[in-house]
């Protein structure tokens, strides 16, 4: 079976992005103008977006479709994540155009690597078998290793790159070992069924033994090892150790990309794998993820309190938010596969978008605030309310959103997540989440207080922001507030996307 034109249409977003990445890298041979690099990258992302919209219409009309002999599944769930990844990548690239000045003359390689990673993340959301999942995961991860270590004048970025490389290698080993167990127990790689009619893992496993969790020892081992492997990407406790170090050491735009796009695709593949392949044993992994969610958000929030570096604090905040998102994963199937209650999936999808807007706003504000001094301590933010009004305001809105205060998208997102938990009988988890949100207010509001109520220690001159920086701050802040006031539209889209996974 060769590649047909239909296959190419179904993979067009990723294809466009890969071509875009290659063109961007090659353009570096001709011109080292960073504006040219940015325009080419945004052009590639625009074509990607257009193809994804065309595919959404197509899927809306004809239902989910598989391509490349069932290696790839194009459904609304995958497309939702693709929109999110492409949008995030575009914002990160615009925001980093000023920052990329310090990579000169290697800005085109930097941009190209971001696009390659984004292509991997998009494929990951649509991967329909274990092999494709693994290869796309590596395509998403490996460029980030280089990106994390891109600034070579200091030791911290290199440390960040090495840490990320080693820990992703270890997590890949866990993941592959887990996949080997799943394949050995089921005899198939297929997570989602397709046109060829080959049996999927869920079909091959059947009912399984009722005495053993997950219906069999091999499945249990496979599921737990795969959870550990994905746990690294999700910054889930106890695999979260790398997160603060990498976020602190890596260039700020790379931290933003890792915290948002990377996390969204990782959650997508976890939802797809567990829901589609292991849905039969949902009660067991619901308990597993509920426990992990509670531990992850508690540890993330408690350790965040004592941080003194803004980027490090955002790293712990990312861990805490991985915990909140895991609530949705746990809530997905506490009812079991039969009732098809998609509240968990759609609330995760909604929160992923809202979380992306809030975290991007926070990171972009940090880029502007630290652009000149390079001082990332929270104390250095003193007086920023006057010195950089827009960036300080954006950071304040983002942090209030991350706390979960209305009328931001963070409040609505947490509401949906906790609601999903309560509806699936996990009331205790919703309570833990609510208590954690209160704890997180302490350190989030602490930064806001420092920015507005404390006088700057030394330099009190205004901090200017470039046009690209201001633009991305306005966009993300608008997204936080608009989605907070009118969450209905996005929630409806998230529900449609989630139903693609349930059916």
């Amino acid at each position: 079976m060769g590649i047909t034109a239909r296959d190419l249409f179904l993979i067009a977003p990723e294809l466009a992005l890969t071509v875009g990445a290659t063109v961007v890298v090659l353009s570096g041979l001709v011109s080292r103008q960073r504006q040219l690099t940015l325009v080419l990258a945004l052009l590639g992302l625009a074509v990607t977006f257009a193809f994804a919209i065309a595919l959404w219409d197509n899927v809306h009309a004809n239902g989910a479709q598989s391509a490349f002999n069932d290696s790839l599944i194009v459904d609304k769930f995958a497309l939702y994540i693709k929109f999110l990844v492409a949008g995030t990548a575009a914002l990160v690239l615009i925001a980093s155009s000023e920052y990329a000045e310090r990579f000169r003359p290697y800005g085109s390689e930097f941009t190209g690597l971001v696009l390659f990673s984004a292509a991997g993340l998009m494929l990951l959301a649509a991967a329909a078998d274990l092999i494709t999942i693994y290869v796309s995961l590596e395509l998403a991860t490996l460029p980030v290793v280089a990106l994390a270590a891109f600034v070579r004048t200091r030791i911290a970025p290199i440390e960040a790159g090495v840490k990320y490389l080693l820990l992703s290698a270890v997590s890949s080993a866990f993941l592959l070992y887990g996949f080997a167990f799943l394949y050995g127990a089921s005899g198939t790689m297929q997570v989602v069924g397709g046109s060829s009619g080959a049996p999927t893992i869920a079909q091959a496993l059947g009912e399984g033994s009722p005495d053993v969790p997950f219906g069999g020892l091999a499945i249990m081992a496979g599921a737990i090892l795969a959870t550990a492997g994905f746990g690294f990407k999700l910054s889930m406790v106890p695999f979260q150790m790398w997160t603060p170090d990498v976020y602190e050491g890596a260039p700020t735009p790379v931290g933003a990309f890792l915290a948002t796009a990377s996390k969204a695709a990782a959650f997508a593949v976890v939802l797809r794998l567990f829901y589609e392949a292991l849905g039969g044993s949902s009660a067991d992994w619901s308990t597993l993820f509920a426990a992990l969610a509670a531990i992850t958000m508690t540890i993330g929030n408690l350790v965040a309190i004592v941080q003194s570096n803004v980027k490090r604090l955002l790293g712990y905040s990312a861990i805490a938010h991985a915990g909140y998102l895991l609530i949705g994963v746990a809530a997905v199937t506490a009812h079991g596969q039969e009732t098809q209650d998609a509240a968990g999936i759609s609330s995760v999808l909604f929160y992923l978008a809202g979380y992306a807007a809030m975290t991007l706003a926070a990171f972009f504000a940090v880029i502007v605030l630290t652009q000149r001094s390079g001082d990332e301590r929270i104390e250095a933010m003193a007086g920023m309310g006057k010195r950089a009004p827009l960036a300080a305001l954006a950071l304040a809105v983002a942090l209030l959103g991350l706390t979960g205060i209305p009328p931001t998208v963070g409040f609505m997102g947490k509401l949906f997540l906790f609601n999903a938990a309560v509806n699936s009988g996990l009331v205790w988890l919703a309570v833990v989440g609510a208590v954690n949100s209160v704890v997180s207010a302490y350190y989030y509001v602490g930064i806001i207080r420092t920015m507005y109520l404390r006088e700057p220690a030394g330099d009190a001159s205004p901090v200017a922001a470039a046009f690209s920086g201001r633009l991305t701050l306005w966009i993300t802040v608008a997204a936080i507030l608009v989605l907070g006031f009118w969450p209905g539209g996005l929630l409806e889209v998230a529900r449609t996307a989630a139903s693609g996974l349930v059916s």
Partner: protein
Amino acid sequence: MAFDNLFSEIVFWALAVVTIGSAALVVHLRSIFRAALMLVVSFLGIAGIFAMVNAEFLAVVQVLVYGGGIAVLVIFAVMMTRDVDTGNRSTAVQPVALVMGVALLAALAYSIVQAEWALLPDSLPAPIATVFVETPTQLGRLLLSDYVLAFEVAGVLLLAAVIGALSLVRERRDA
């Protein structure tokens, strides 16, 4: 594990002892250079086990990539690093790691032995050795038909890796 004859049985156990023994030495030897050499022996032992279960292609790749490429890489890295003879230092987490490691090993070993695997049916239409002839040909066909997407994505992955590596070893004009 059941093999057709005593000879296969003996070869398997010999390979198993060599593979696991050399892997244990990798952890224990104080000289990191010798540890790297032991790692190569362990890789070759695994290649032998692949060859025994009719996975000739994997066996050759294992020798070429792990026994060859990766081994050279590891030894180069060891030789270019200073203070190589210190070995693994003891740390406070070592006892904890030992307990966790043994527990994980026991859990996995128990699962592997007890689990119901999706094995091939006992009554195969033909002897297994005749089904798995010419695995390289079959693998090649599969890689360019059923698994062409993974194959192509791996190509893009290598491109991204080369670009990433080149931009990391660039001239330090920024220093």
